[in-house]
């Protein structure tokens, strides 16, 4: 799967949490790769391991979590083999991350300006220069009244502005890869559109690749190049946007698409997927989706499906699709 253009490739990555109730394997043996200048979306419902994957990429998994296997190759370097200090040079400089909750992602006791310059100073430029540049960055992410806003405290800004400041900070060091962990979850639709616009520009202007984590197919359709669908810690389908939207192959993907609200159809109630995500401590045998799958056959409970190619670049893990 690895080609020369790949910026990042993850092979067989597993993460598990050691809890008192047992070992939770939040992510199990996932593999995917992100090319340069690509927006790669990781989609799935809550608790399926999307964020855990992102944290693992940054090596920010904290106790009791643990990366139990696999490797993460970023620019020909295995991130999992780096030590604590070497990781500091990767984080922020080469890989940055935007978090789910913009409301709490800024230090409440620092003014926006000192916060942003804090991030730039890490690039070994003088404090004065950073101080000046901070305002430019705030302007870049299209915050009105940048000069005045720079001297505000985070609680004086709206959620959207805070998220933009956050993005500004994270892109100020021109990372090669930006992980956006549900960047628009807490924001309303208009702000959402603006944030997505900024992310898109980022890809075009700086050439950053983006790993977009979301559960919103609407966003995916709008900006992603390729998609991976995750279910209960595994990737069930990977493909480019057109392949997946036109011909979803895995039943889970099909059901997810089916449960989207559509403007052009009168359907009455929204469709839902029966049941909920299985307990990650006690996973069902065979295919992890078999309990909820409408097409489930007996062999689904016995064989664990592997990723297989449907078309070039379109992989899917379902034994039923072979026919």
């Amino acid at each position, binding site marked *: 799967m690895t080609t020369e253009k790949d910026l990042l490739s993850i092979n067989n990555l597993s993460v598990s949490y050691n809890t008192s109730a047992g070992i939770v394997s939040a992510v199990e043996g996932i593999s995917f790769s992100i090319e340069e200048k690509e927006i790669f979306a990781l989609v799935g419902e809550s608790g399926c391991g999307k964020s855990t994957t992102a944290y693992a990429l940054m090596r920010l998994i904290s106790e009791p979590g643990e990366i139990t296997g696999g490797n993460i190759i970023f620019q020909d370097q295995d991130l999992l083999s780096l030590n604590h200090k070497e990781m500091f040079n990767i984080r922020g400089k080469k890989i940055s991350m935007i978090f789910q909750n913009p409301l709490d992602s800024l*230090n409440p006791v620092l003014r926006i300006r000192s916060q942003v310059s*804090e991030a730039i100073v890490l690039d070994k430029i003088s404090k004065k220069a950073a101080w000046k540049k901070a305002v430019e960055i705030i302007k870049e992410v299209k915050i009105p009244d940048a000069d005045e806003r720079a001297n505000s405290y985070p609680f004086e800004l709206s959620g959207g502005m805070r998220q933009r400041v956050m993005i500004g900070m994270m892109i100020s060091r021109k990372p090669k890869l930006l992980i956006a962990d549900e960047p628009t979850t807490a924001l309303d639709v208009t702000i959402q559109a603006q944030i997505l616009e900024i992310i898109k520009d980022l890809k075009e202007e700086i050439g950053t690749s983006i790993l977009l984590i979301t559960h919103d197919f609407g966003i995916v359709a709008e900006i992603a190049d390729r998609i991976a669908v995750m279910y209960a810690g595994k990737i069930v389908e990977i493909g480019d946007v057109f392949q997946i939207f036109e011909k979803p192959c895995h039943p889970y993907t099909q059901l997810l698409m089916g449960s989207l609200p559509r403007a052009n159809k009168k359907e009455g109630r929204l469709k839902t997927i029966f049941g909920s995500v299985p307990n990650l401590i006690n996973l069902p045998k065979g295919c992890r989706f078999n309990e909820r799958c409408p097409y489930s056959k007996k062999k689904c409970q016995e064989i664990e499906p592997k990723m297989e190619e449907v078309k070039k670049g379109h992989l899917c893990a379902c034994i039923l699709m072979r026919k």
Partner: protein
Amino acid sequence: MIKNFISEGLKNKTFCVGFFIFISVLFIAVFADIIAPYAYDEMEIINKLTNPNQQHLFGTDRYGRDVFSRVVFGSRIALQVGLIVVLIESFIGISLGLLAGYYGGITNRIILFITDLTWSMPPIILALAIITMLGPSLNNVVISIAVVSWAQFTRIVRAKTQSLKNMPFVEAARAFGENDFNIILRYILPNVMPSIIVITTLALPSAILLTSSLGFLGLGAQPPLPDWGVILSNGIPFIRKAPWIAIFPGLAIAYTVLGFNLIGEGLRDILDPKLKI
């Protein structure tokens, strides 16, 4: 922010009263030379044990020393010792608390063990033991009190740090490549500051009380230094004949300690938004 703080402070009566008391004690300590009519060790044997009168506002003790002047000079010792002790113990306590809370694991266990150990002993007894080891003097009082009471800082700072280190903004700081030292200093410490300020204002009166207690027991400041505890213990043998010798330093201790406690209480209300409804 600061404007806000001042207006909040003015609204809070507890804080105002405490602050007034603190300022008055500070004023007396700073201008002790001017306020006190006599030197603290000036003896007039002829006038020993006189009642409070115009020459001697608080009367005199058995060597004919003016109790008023001694109490006034005593405020210097109380404030100095109190402030130095609090500086030392907060430095130790805060650093250990931050380390334990941030790193967790074995660091946390070791620090917590030491903290619990010092916490489990009554402070005055531990201080007594340390003083007997080092010998009675004001410097050793400072050391012993700092050693017994840093644990209160550690406990609270540790608990706050633990809850802060998982806040999204700390995670975000890590994600853009801040190192641990910067995270602790710029992201965690300022957010723990409100609690630290409150503990400090509450640690100060207890330090003053401990100093006086040790002085009273003869293990702190040595006579003729006018430590409030020392004056009080000098007055005890004459408590029937000349009660003013013991009463006035006692009142001074109570007044000062009350002031700091009120400030602490008021600050807690002002700085903790959760208490506001």
